[in-house]
């Protein structure tokens, strides 16, 4: 059964006269990984802070059907989070830090578990003031996962992680997800979440641009054939006459539209005696298309103001 674990409706937030969040609505299904994508200052952290009850806001946020607000923290019992940067006591070791925040029974087991899961054995017994950026980040993620949370909120968790650690973290997130944990993960880089997120919420200037499944977002992302011939100009004219779209670059860039058939295209070129030097299929640049969406939106907003 699919249930909405987290629901946000009509979320508004302003700091003084500055409207930072405008009518945010989205929900998250239990056991899904949701990516929250937006540029710097888009409002990702602010949304997360609202969910965690450390901001006043207008609107309604529920976790497992229980309402959260600055005065109502009960539902946060099953939530773990890392917001912006990990807050650490410099005089404690990583292990002590975990011990401090571990609650419930078998605390020591939980601590060892996290150290193992995040591959922190090497530096767990070192004071955190001597940690590198990546070590701190790992410990911060570890703290978020410590008390077997149902919902985990991670604000740019890949910050400062090397490629190996990034992959390890991705794998860990997926394996936790398979255990039924729900994730909200923010990033300004879509590709970082492309492989793991089930759903994406894209925000810009405090407004939702799209809230959809990752699959849909990827589907909307056009694929191309890049074709190189002995006479690109001639080929382009020929294709345009035959109702193909051509985005001419160094090579001919032909978006793959519905009912597209590579056979037909090749036949057309061959029958015109055009020599094909090279042909390859290419995925569209997700980031680029996202930026286009964002830019379009930004321009719209500016017009409105």
């Amino acid at each position, binding site marked *: 059964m699919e249930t909405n674990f987290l629901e946000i409706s009509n979320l508004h937030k302003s700091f003084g006269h500055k409207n930072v969040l405008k009518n945010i609505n989205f929900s998250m299904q239990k056991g899904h990984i949701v990516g929250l994508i937006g540029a710097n200052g888009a409002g990702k952290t602010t949304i997360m*802070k609202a969910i*965690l*009850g*450390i*901001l006043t806001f207008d609107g309604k946020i529920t976790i497992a059907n229980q309402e959260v607000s*600055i*005065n109502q*923290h*009960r*539902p*946060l*019992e099953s*939530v773990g*989070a890392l*917001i912006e*940067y*990990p*807050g*650490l*006591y*410099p*005089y*404690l070791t990583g292990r*002590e830090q975990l*011990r*401090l*925040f571990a*609650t419930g029974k078998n605390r020591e087991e939980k601590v060892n578990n996290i150290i193992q899961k995040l591959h922190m054995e090497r530096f767990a017994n070192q004071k955190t003031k001597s940690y590198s950026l990546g070590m701190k980040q790992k410990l911060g993620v570890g*703290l978020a996962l410590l008390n077997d949370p149902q919902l985990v909120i991670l604000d740019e968790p890949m910050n400062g992680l090397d490629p190996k650690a990034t992959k390890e973290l991705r794998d860990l997130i997926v394996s936790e997800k398979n255990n039924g944990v729900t994730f909200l993960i923010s990033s300004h880089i879509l590709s970082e979440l492309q492989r793991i997120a089930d759903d994406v919420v894209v925000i810009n200037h405090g407004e939702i641009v799209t809230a959809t499944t990752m699959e849909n977002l990827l589907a909307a992302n056009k694929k191309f054939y890049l074709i190189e011939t002995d006479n690109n100009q001639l080929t382009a004219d020929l294709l345009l006459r035959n109702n193909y779209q051509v985005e001419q670059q160094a090579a001919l860039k032909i978006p793959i539209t519905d009912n597209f058939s590579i056979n037909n295209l090749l036949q057309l070129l061959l029958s015109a005696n055009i020599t094909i030097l090279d042909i390859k299929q290419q995925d569209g640049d997700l980031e680029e298309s996202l930026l286009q969406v964002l830019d379009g939106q930004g321009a719209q907003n500016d017009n409105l103001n």
Partner: protein
Amino acid sequence: MITLIRQEFYKLFKQRSTQLFLIVLFAFQLFFAVISMKYPKFYSPKDAFTSNYFASAPILFFMIAICSMLITKERQFGTLRSLLYRKFSYVQVILSKIITLVLFIVSTVICSSVISVIFKFIFANKVDLTEKIWKDFLFTNLNDFLTLLFLISLVILLGTLVNSSNLALTIGIIGYFVLNVFNQLLFAAIAKFEWLKWNPLNMMNLGVQIQSSSYHQLTHLTMTQISIGYIVYVLIFLCLAVYSFRKKSV
């Protein structure tokens, strides 16, 4: 709440400064115990004991220091928000901190008293434990404790209002000296303007007035008035601290 208090104690005792403080406190008392034994004329063993071997001085400074940094340190470490985005409310978080401090102060005062009694038997065995000496000793402790409690509730309030550890600490320490000086001036002022007796500083004399009721002539407050006044002011300071903490952005 028990969880929160347990966590606060864990942090407190893991800090080098706390460990150092406990050692210094012991050394401090030992120093004065030895001095009073070696130079009884300069510093009589009886006075040394009844003054708790001056334990109140290090206790006071250390407590002011940690109270003033109660919130600012957490902010500096970036840990304040991780304390708050849990199932616990803002009020529970700040209350757990205050309760931990009060428990720590009470146990430190008790420990230092026990140490004083032990030192008395080791270094001042000749002093007879008359009822008067016992009383003086207990009153010193009570007075120190009451002064401290009043001060820290004020410092905790300050600590929630300002955002810098150093500022809160400086205000706390300077505040203590200023309070002491003003206290004398205030008595003169109260003699002139009766209503001034209700000012918070005057309530800090609760301890001395318990010890010698003649203090009533200086404070112009009856025992009941000063007791209630004391409690009310402490509660007001702490409530304001809780309120200002709830308004913090993290």
